[in-house]
């Protein structure tokens, strides 16, 4: 018996059996064998709806009369009572079919989102005393040595000790090209090692590693409801009771005034009941946001909640931090002015002197020349520069203060930002100009933002005027503010916020947490490891690629768009069928479609939020 029950619980079995019975009953009805037809209709209803009836009874027991299943049961029983047997059966069967589709759609979207989120391996291979052991990633202590094989996902944030490989970072950063890594490089959990065997030391516990953080962020993001979701919740609280009351009035009032027969009016009331469930909306709208959040996460864009979407979709002003956001934070040589020597000679001497230093500026300068002469000794003077001794000469490379200290004449050399001076044996041999290099995608990223309706792009920088203006001009930023103290930056941002409907601030999360928090939308770039940034920002972008901002805006627009499509489509379809019902033009079949059919279509539509198309919107 229990096996039979289990068999009858399968939706597909219920659908097949009840449809067969339904067809049989139609045939008998056609042959005017009414009693037989009636019995078979009842059997079809029982097969399709026995669980629905049971749940309806449970609903009554907990005094929840607006339960969808209760309404369907009333509609089905009511139709049969009115003598519309086939309609009564159709309600149940089509409700069941619709529900089955709906569950499939929900399941499918859940699993596609889950697949995107499958970035956190449960196990790690630990190397201790020369023995490899696979244990739960959660149990791996900080500072352990782990082994990652080709094809495996990095389980815990770590630094490579031995080995080199190409790693696929796409599920964490959305960057399609693999990255080459070697000893000393950091790996985030969630990366996939494509080739090569890696030994690495873990930096933190698994639960604090990047992939776990991302997952937590995405999970809590779906709890922060968007404006649209909140609207639907509020709406459905009123919608169902109102339709049910309308149905009651529909059943009672027209017969009193003899406008309809009681049969007609009750039938119309029943169609109202079937339409009254707001499920299409209550499922599809949050699902669109869930899809948007999940889809964006797989491209390395993390939204802190559904509530970010509508603000982001309307963004008008985008303010950028300069260093590390528009620029890479790394230096490039932008010019050289030799004095009394050849340019090649100047660059060679500078590169040689700096070859032993590890200062960010030195790292740039030592790439200035392919030919490098190793100094015998080299001394770094903090804040000034380098003194390098060669067998036949002494080279000084550094700022103005260093030159002053060694009494080197700088006559005729104007003071300029980013100038590095070089002297040989007490004589100036030239100046090398360096600048922060602009990210290669910066100017296309800015123009793409303008192309989607961002009115004003702004740069807020503490850097010198010349530098800031040069950067702003070369990437196409509208307004530049320079030489700002951190407080000035915050004040300027505040002015921008008051002046525009929705203002975004983009920073690297270092030192600008208050601005990230103050802006309508704070975007932290390339700083998933920084707690203060994650805390303050509304959107966290895993890479430092500026074009992700454009993607983030477009994904949010698409998601908001889809949610409104669903709201309008579902309400429109339901409203239309209600009106048709009012004039007696809608039958039960149409009503069932208005309920479950609309829900399925809306869910399918919502799933589009998961995918982001590169070009066209």
């Amino acid at each position, binding site marked *: 018996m229990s096996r039979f029950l289990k068999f009858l*619980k399968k939706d597909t079995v219920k659908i097949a059996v009840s449809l067969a019975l339904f067809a049989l009953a139609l045939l008998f009805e056609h042959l005017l064998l009414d009693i037989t037809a009636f019995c078979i209709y009842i059997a079809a209803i029982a097969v399709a709806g026995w*669980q629905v009836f*049971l*749940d309806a009874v*449970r609903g009554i*027991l*907990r005094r*929840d009369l607006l*339960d*969808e299943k209760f309404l369907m049961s009333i509609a089905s029983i009511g139709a049969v009572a009115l003598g519309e047997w086939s309609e009564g059966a159709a309600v149940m069967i089509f409700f069941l079919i619709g*529900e089955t589709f*709906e*569950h499939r759609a929900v399941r499918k979207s*859940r699993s596609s*989102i889950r697949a995107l989120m499958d970035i956190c391996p449960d196990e790690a291979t630990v190397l201790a005393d020369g023995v490899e052991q696979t244990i739960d990633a959660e149990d791996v202590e900080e500072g352990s040595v782990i082994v990652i094989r080709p094809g495996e996902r990095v389980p815990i944030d770590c630094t490579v000790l031995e080995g080199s490989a190409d790693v696929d970072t796409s599920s964490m950063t959305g960057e399609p090209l693999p990255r080459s890594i070697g000893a000393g490089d950091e790996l985030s959990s969630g990366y996939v090692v494509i080739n090569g065997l890696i030994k690495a030391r873990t930096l933190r516990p698994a639960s604090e590693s990047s992939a776990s953080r991302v997952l937590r962020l995405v*999970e809590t993001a*779906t*709890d922060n409801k968007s404006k649209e979701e909140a609207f639907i*919740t509020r709406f*459905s609280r009123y919608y169902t009771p109102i339709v049910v009351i309308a149905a009651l009035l529909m059943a009672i009032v027209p017969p009193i005034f003899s406008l309809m027969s009681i049969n007609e009016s009750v039938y119309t009331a029943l169609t109202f009941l079937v339409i009254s*469930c*707001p*499920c299409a909306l*209550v*499922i599809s709208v*949050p*699902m669109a946001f*869930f899809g948007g959040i999940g889809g964006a996460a797989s491209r390395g864009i993390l939204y802190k909640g559904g509530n970010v979407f509508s603000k982001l979709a309307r963004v008008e002003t985008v303010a950028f931090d300069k260093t590390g956001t528009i620029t890479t934070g790394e230096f490039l040589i932008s010019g050289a002015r030799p004095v009394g020597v050849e340019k090649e000679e100047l660059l060679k001497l500078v590169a040689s002197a700096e070859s032993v230093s590890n200062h960010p500026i030195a790292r740039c300068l030592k790439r200035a020349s392919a030919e490098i002469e190793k100094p015998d000794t080299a001394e770094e003077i903090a804040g000034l520069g380098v003194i390098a001794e060669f067998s036949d000469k002494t080279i000084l490379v550094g700022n103005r203060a260093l030159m002053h200290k060694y009494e080197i004449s700088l006559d005729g050399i104007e003071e300029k930002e980013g100038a590095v001076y070089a002297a040989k044996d007490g004589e100036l041999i030239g100046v090398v100009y360096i600048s922060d290099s602009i990210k290669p995608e910066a100017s296309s990223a800015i123009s793409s933002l303008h192309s989607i309706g961002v009115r004003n792009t702004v740069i807020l920088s503490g850097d010198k005027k010349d530098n800031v203006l040069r950067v702003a001009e070369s990437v196409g930023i509208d307004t530049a503010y320079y030489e700002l103290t951190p407080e000035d930056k915050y004040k300027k941002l505040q002015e921008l916020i008051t002046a525009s409907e929705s203002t975004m601030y983009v920073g690297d999360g270092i030192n600008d947490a208050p601005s990230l928090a103050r802006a309508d939308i704070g975007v932290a770039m390339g700083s998933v490891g920084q707690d203060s940034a994650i805390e303050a920002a509304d959107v966290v972008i895993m890479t430092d690629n500026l074009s992700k901002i454009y993607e983030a805006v477009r994904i949010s627009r698409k998601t908001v768009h889809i949610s409104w499509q669903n709201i309008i489509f579902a309400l429109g379809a339901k409203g239309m069928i209600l009106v048709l019902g009012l004039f007696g033009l809608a039958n039960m079949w149409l009503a069932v479609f208005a309920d479950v059919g609309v829900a399925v279509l809306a869910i399918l539509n919502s799933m589009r939020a998961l995918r982001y198309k590169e070009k066209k919107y």
Partner: protein
Amino acid sequence: MKIKYTITGLDCPNCAAKLASQIESKDGIESAKINFLTEKLTVETTLSEADCRALVEKCAKAFEDGIEIE
């Protein structure tokens, strides 16, 4: 204490919200939240783990056929 369960077999977010508010109305439960899409039930409770689980399972059983709690 905060306890997280995986809850499967719910039909729609509407039902999920209803079940959550039912659980919430019980003695010893401070808050209950169901995320329909991630299928997670989060309960804040003063009850012991075993008691809480029994209560949650009872509520689910009285609510609808086929809801599973893990």
